[in-house]
């Protein structure tokens, strides 16, 4: 019998930064080299020796490249921002289940995303922008703090041509491009042909997700047609370190994307 070989998941590989896209002062997208299968909503452990590792979700996938949209908020991410095109970062992954676009095909789709929550779901939005014949009507409701905090500005121009886009800010002055207010206030007025069959994805800070799901359910969405993506501390990404566990689910293995019928039972 051949000796069983266990892969060492913890040793990272080097990936080169091909491009750095600056969205805001503290949020950049690092376009990295990566060959292999990966789905939107999956994540990589990004690391820099001495500073440690941080789980970062994939915000774009294209021809041997992956986008990692990183907010500069911690020890590791601060250091990532000291790296530029041509530099290398250590990665391991991808981990987690990610979004399965098959679930949303040929349906009315609503995406509600707040802040960096747009990153994990950007791949799904991009897919259905490119393949608008594979879906019915699509609406995205995205919220940011202020006009300085808007991510993926360029993408929004393209998305506006392809789908209904509601971009709303917590504060500031209303313009033709964006409204002022919370993402939840646009949910009751969503125009849907058949809400019982419509599907929704909600990603963002915990409170935003809670209230958005509540509003979607009140609007008539079925629990099984709502998906959420969770964010937790993770040290391993492979179901060992325990940090991301909520009840009997491991966000890194069973998630980060959960159907709401499962997600609603998760008590931190």
């Amino acid at each position, binding site marked *: 019998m051949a000796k069983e070989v266990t892969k060492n998941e913890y040793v990272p590989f080097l990936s080169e930064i091909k491009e750095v896209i600056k969205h805001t002062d503290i949020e950049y997208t690092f376009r990295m080299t990566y060959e292999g299968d990966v789905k939107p909503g999956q994540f990589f452990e990004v690391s820099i020796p001495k500073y440690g590792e941080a789980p970062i979700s994939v915000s774009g996938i294209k021809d041997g490249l992956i986008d990692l949209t990183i907010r500069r908020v911690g020890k590791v991410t601060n250091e990532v921002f000291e790296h530029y095109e041509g530099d290398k970062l250590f990665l391991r992954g991808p981990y987690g289940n990610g979004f399965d676009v098959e679930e949303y095909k040929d349906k009315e789709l609503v995406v509600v995303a707040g802040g960096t929550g747009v990153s994990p779901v950007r791949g799904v939005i991009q897919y259905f922008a490119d393949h608008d014949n594979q879906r019915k009507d699509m609406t995205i409701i995205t919220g940011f703090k202020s006009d300085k905090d808007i991510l993926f500005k360029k993408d929004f121009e393209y998305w506006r041509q392809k789908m209904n886009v509601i971009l709303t800010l917590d504060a500031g002055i209303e313009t033709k491009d964006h409204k002022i207010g919370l993402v939840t206030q646009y949910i009751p007025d969503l125009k849907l042909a058949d809400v019982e069959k419509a599907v929704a994805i909600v990603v963002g800070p915990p409170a935003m997700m809670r209230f958005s799901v509540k509003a979607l359910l009140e609007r008539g969405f079925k629990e099984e047609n709502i998906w959420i993506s969770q964010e937790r*501390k993770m040290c391993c990404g492979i179901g*060992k370190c325990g940090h991301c566990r909520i009840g009997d689910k491991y966000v890194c293995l069973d998630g980060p994307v959960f159907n709401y019928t499962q997600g609603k039972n998760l*008590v931190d």
Partner: protein
Amino acid sequence: MGYKLNEREFNQLLGELSEKYLIYAPKVFVGKGRFSDTDCIRYDKVKNVEDMELSLKSQYSFKEVLNPVSETLFYFTEDSVKEADMPRNKGAIIFLRSCDLHAVERMDEMYLNNGPKDYYYKRLRDNIHFVLIGCSKAFDSCFCVDMGTNKSDNYDIGLNVREDGYELDVKWDEAKDILGKMAKENSLKEEDVTVDFVKETTTRVSIPKNLSYDVSKSKIWEEYAGRCINCGRCNFVCPTCTCFTMQDVYYDANGKVGERRRVWASCMVDGYTDVAGGGSYRKNNGERMRFKTLHKALDYRNRTGYNMCVGCGRCDDICPEYISFSNILNKLDTAMKEVSANG
């Protein structure tokens, strides 16, 4: 096959085995207890039976043999990464009691079945043999019978420590060969041996069959918000707690040479859920107690079909606030009734 050995013969067996294996057993660390003039019993490498403490309960479990407190995963120098060598150059023999032998199954479940296999655990887990220390009676805080972990057949050598010697039930060929050789040279006493196991415990525990996440809403957790000081000792002594945190250590000021380690983590201690940007979950110690309790008595069972807690009672023994985990488990029934009464 069973033998009865005297101390000299038992040490001869250990001596021959130690050529190929490191031997780990509970050992007394004089004066190292939590209070002045008390001793600590924990696992260490031993050479012979005199080094071992086989009559008392070890305050810490065997788990550090398979899952070290701090374990280097790899070294890095600029762009290159070098995997850390195996910390042991031999196989190992672990002396443990039935509850702990059941805990090995829980560790295996986490590190080998929950997601992909853990490379570093796997290499320490390979070539391990277990000596089951028979328990003729339970210690005060034990509740193995109620957790179904009082008995195990999954050992290489079963051992009863008697006044006049050591009774061994040997299932392991390597040990059988050594004993067979010894039997030829001396007159070794062969006899049938059944490993002692505990049939009743003074501490009793009953986990309600209808236990569900609704219990989170109960008021029982509030007590622990005040009593628990989130020191994490319960996690560190628990043979089934396996959480860890990554830690980068560097050796010089330029930070280009260093290593990545994993170190034990505790869901009771601050920082366990901290995400970048300042977010964290379960800030209240009562919530942490609920999270830990439900893992041991519900979450793990939902994934595997059996409870995680093995009833060793070490968490009760170690708690500086005298919080009893068995008592918490026994409160779950009332807590479920409270929650369902409140709708």
